[in-house]
């Protein structure tokens, strides 16, 4: 509960900060402070210090997994602020509001990681989405931004409609006529009634849309491309992580017993996602857009965890979300500083900014899943969690083939930075920025060697 309430309050504070603080930098500083508080609060929450004792009437349910995800999300946001806070503030004329909206999104995320009723899921998803519509369009003069925001909004609303229809059917088919996750699944018989299957599929589709899994991903490239790069960074990492956890939580808590009946659809979606994400990324000319597709591809891997929903899956998704977010935030942070997003824009980076190039390399290697980076272990978990079930081996092989393809486009950047010579463009970056990048890459390597640092948190029980 700490996270939800605190983030809401902080949102309000940030909202008014615009009035009292004139300088962008000070607002940014305040935002960093705020996120730090939020992080601490949720860490305390995880460690058993609950400041707000609220009877949620079973609407929300807090558990280690959700808390951990919150911490990861907030930590990533902290890193994100440390790298890009000023850039956020300088998107447009109302910096305070941007930060406020981001905090509202975080509030939504902390709901999405702890909902126990479809109603809360719905509200949480909406609280995540609506501010994002705004943030996408926050660069008001920029037509790309407008277009992105319009597209995002229309399709988002559409998917909301689908989600609600699904919820309606689930409600109709649930014996007790309630929205609690526990009551949704069939009581005695292990087979889902047709109506339940219909609702479940519709819900799955809408969630697939939210996490941008193919063939419901079409908004992603355009929106990521059109939105201000800082915002893209946030959407592609923290938000995606939050919504994905909502996805896994929904299916993990509501329909684990009838897994066998919906696994196949997840498998199909994952396959299509991997294929489209990776293949389409190959031919992109702009790194920003390439990253958009790569984020789709990564989701394809994450979906494997929903496919199985076993311990390995839980541990794995935790690692995956963390590593993926960190790497992507790092890359976008660099991208934010650049004018030219094309691959050639990276030419000769290694000569001019060796530190940046090194960090970027680590991030890319991690995304590509090369050992010694967390990305490898994340992918490893995803594969392992499927292989332990003994079925869906074809999916694993397909996923790995796609991973090979992904190497192609990730390494194009590395090649540009190191092996192609060219005049690297001017980036205004301070030592702090570079230090931060190094820290992030160290985190990735650390997670690549000692994943249990993160995973073991799952099993520490606080009273």
């Amino acid at each position, binding site marked *: 509960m700490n996270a939800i309430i605190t983030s809401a309050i902080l949102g309000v504070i940030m909202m008014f900060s615009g009035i009292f603080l004139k300088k962008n930098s000070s607002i940014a500083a305040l935002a960093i402070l705020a996120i730090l508080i939020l992080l601490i609060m949720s860490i305390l929450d995880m460690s058993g210090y609950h400041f707000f004792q609220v009877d949620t009437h079973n609407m929300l349910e807090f558990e280690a997994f959700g808390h951990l995800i919150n911490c990861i999300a907030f930590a990533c946001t902290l890193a994100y602020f440390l790298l890009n806070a000023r850039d956020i503030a300088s998107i447009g004329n109302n910096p305070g509001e941007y930060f406020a909206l981001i905090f509202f999104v975080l509030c939504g995320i902390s709901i999405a990681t702890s909902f126990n009723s479809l109603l809360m899921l719905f509200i949480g998803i909406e609280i995540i989405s609506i501010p994002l519509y705004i943030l996408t369009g926050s660069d008001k003069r920029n037509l790309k931004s407008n277009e992105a925001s*319009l*597209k995002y909004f*229309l*399709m988002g609303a*559409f*998917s909301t409609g*689908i989600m609600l229809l699904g919820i309606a059917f689930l409600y109709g088919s649930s014996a007790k006529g309630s929205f609690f996750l526990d009551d949704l699944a069939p009581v005695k018989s292990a087979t889902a009634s*047709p109506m339940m*299957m*219909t609702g479940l*599929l*519709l819900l799955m*589709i809408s969630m697939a*849309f939210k996490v941008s899994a*193919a*063939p*419901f991903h*079409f*908004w992603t*490239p*355009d929106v990521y491309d059109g939105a201000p790069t800082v915002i893209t960074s946030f959407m592609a990492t923290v938000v995606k992580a939050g919504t994905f956890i909502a996805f896994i939580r929904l299916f993990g808590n509501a329909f684990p017993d009838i897994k066998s009946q919906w696994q*196949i*659809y997840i498998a*199909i979606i994952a396959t299509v996602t991997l294929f*489209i994400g990776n*293949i*389409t*990324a*190959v*031919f992109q000319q702009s790194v920003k857009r390439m990253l958009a597709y790569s984020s789709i591809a990564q989701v394809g891997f994450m979906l494997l965890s929903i496919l199985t929903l076993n311990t390995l899956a839980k541990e794995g998704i935790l690692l995956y979300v963390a590593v993926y977010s960190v790497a992507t935030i790092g890359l976008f942070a660099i991208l934010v500083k650049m004018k030219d997003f094309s691959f050639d824009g990276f030419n000769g980076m290694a000569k001019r900014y060796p530190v940046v190039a090194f960090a970027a390399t680590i991030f890319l290697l991690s995304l590509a899943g090369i050992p010694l980076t967390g990305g490898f272990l994340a992918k490893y978990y995803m594969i392992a969690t499927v292989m332990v079930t003994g079925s869906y081996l074809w999916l694993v092989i397909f996923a790995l083939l796609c991973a090979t*393809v992904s190497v*192609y486009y990730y390494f194009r950047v590395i090649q540009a930075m190191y092996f192609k010579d060219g005049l690297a463009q001017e980036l205004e970056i301070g030592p702090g920025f570079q230090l931060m990048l190094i820290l992030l890459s160290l985190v990735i390597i650390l997670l690549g060697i000692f994943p249990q640092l993160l995973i073991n948190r799952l099993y520490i029980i606080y009273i």
Partner: protein
Amino acid sequence: MSNYVYLVPLFPLIGFLINGLFRKSIPKSLSGLIGSSMILASFVVSAGIFFQVKQEGFQPVIVTLFQFIHADKLTIPFSFLVDPLSTLFLLIITGVGFLIHLYSVGYMKEENAPDYAKYFCYLNLFVFFMLLLVLGSNYVILFIGWEGVGLCSHLLIGYWFKNIDYDNAAKKAFIMNRIGDVGFLIAIFALIFKFNSVSFDTIFHAAPTATTGFLTAVTLLLFLGATGKSAQIPLYTWLPDAMAGPTPVSALIHAATMVTAGIYMIARSHVLYNLAPVSQTVVAITGLATIILAALIAVKQNDIKKVLAYSTVSQLGYMFLGLGVGAYTEAVFHVLTHAFFKALLFLCAGSVIHAMSGEQDIRNMGGLKKYLPITHFTFLMGCLAISGIPPFSGFFSKDEILTAAYGKNPVYFIVGVAGAMITAFYMFRLYATTFLGNFRGTEKQQHHLHESPSTITIPLVVLAILAVVGGFLGVPELFAKNSNLLSHFLNPVLGGEGNAAEIPASTEWMLMGISTILAISMVLYALSKFRKKPELGEPVGFGKWMADKFYVDELYDALIVKPLNALADFFNQVIEKKLIDGLVNGTGRLVQYSSRQLRYLQSGQVGGYVLLMVIGTVLLFVVQLFLRK
């Protein structure tokens, strides 16, 4: 004494190392001295060993230096075997070797110091490997020497490496040897597989237990090796080209020692051959074919060394004939005599070439009799010996082989005698054209025709003497009981007559007579034909075929070399570049292409996107409807 046998190869090795490492620094005289003295040293040691070995009741000694290979149950010691056979070869190699080193000291004078040193270091290395070959107490050590001498012959043929043709000759020699060696190797693998050992005694003891089929296979493979090394059909063509090397090299390697390695090896493994009659027949017939073919080619050659080369080939054929009919002692005997007279002939040729300042074509010689008396005389001795005129050494050895051949199969004998006749003919054609008649060379050549220095002539003389009297080492039992010292000496190893058939004395006399008479008549015919008007024009008809070596080289080129290259090109151009690489790159291109196509799904229009989403939804539901059934 025989426990110090390792000294024998050690000396040449030392010589090799000294000459090899300090080739830049040491002067010519010294390197020549080192080279020859080392061989002399090992000759002395071998002589000592010989006298110990020839005592009655001498048991073969095995001297093990160290464990060479041992893996699993297979152990291969690096050890030497001292017995009459190896001792005899030791003497031949070191003895003749020494003479030829001596000869080289004079012959190679013109070379500059480093090359001079290089020459002697190669030569010493050769002797080292040759000794390894004959001393080895198992097939692997034998094989080490076997390939080693091949290497040295390769290096020495290509000694004047600036000349591409010489390099080609060298390469040809090595590769043709390699072909044979592969056969040898496979035989060794088979033996290991069967007997789990490679040492002679073990194998020969266990041999009777093996099936005839297996033994036939192994012996044939060994024989393949022998044909490579000893220049028999089908692998003989490298030897004539090998004349590219310096003449002493031809004398030592390509006449006296290396080419007889095959005979040694088969004689060594005679136990196996006795158990595999089929292989014996093959050996004999190959020998016969080689005799005739080489002899015929020799008739029409005009390069003095080429003639000798082909005669070597055909003489080797006699030895294989001997081996084939189970007359191992005789074969080895012929190796001995042949070593004498063929080395002699080559050295004479060398002396002639030296005198003619590099000229090798006999059509530009003639009448050298009065310019080079010593050379002429010794050469004549050699010719008589090789033509099998009594009482010269060649007569005895060749005759014993022929007799044994008759015992096996009269046809062998007839062909053999025919070969002998041709031999006599071309040898005296060579003799007459070179030494008789009047000089046909240029003025310049005639101007400084001169007898060679003593370092060259002394070996000639020594060898000439050996060529003349050498035969008395193995006088047939026919003349006097126990007169055949050699067979008596080798008896412990080769077991007397092997399985050669006994034939009545009267027949033997008759055969001897026939062959002798025919040989002499051919000699006279050749002399009368060529002394006045040597054939200088281009040969025609069948003669042309003979002159062009029956186009065997061209045949090989067309049958093996060209197709192989074509295949290689096909692999390189088509399979590698187009097929495999094309496949790999094709996958990449496919991905690129599909990427370019998939992009168009991203039309940028909300309507399109929603439509696709709806379609996706519909499809999922369709799947679900199907699964529900």
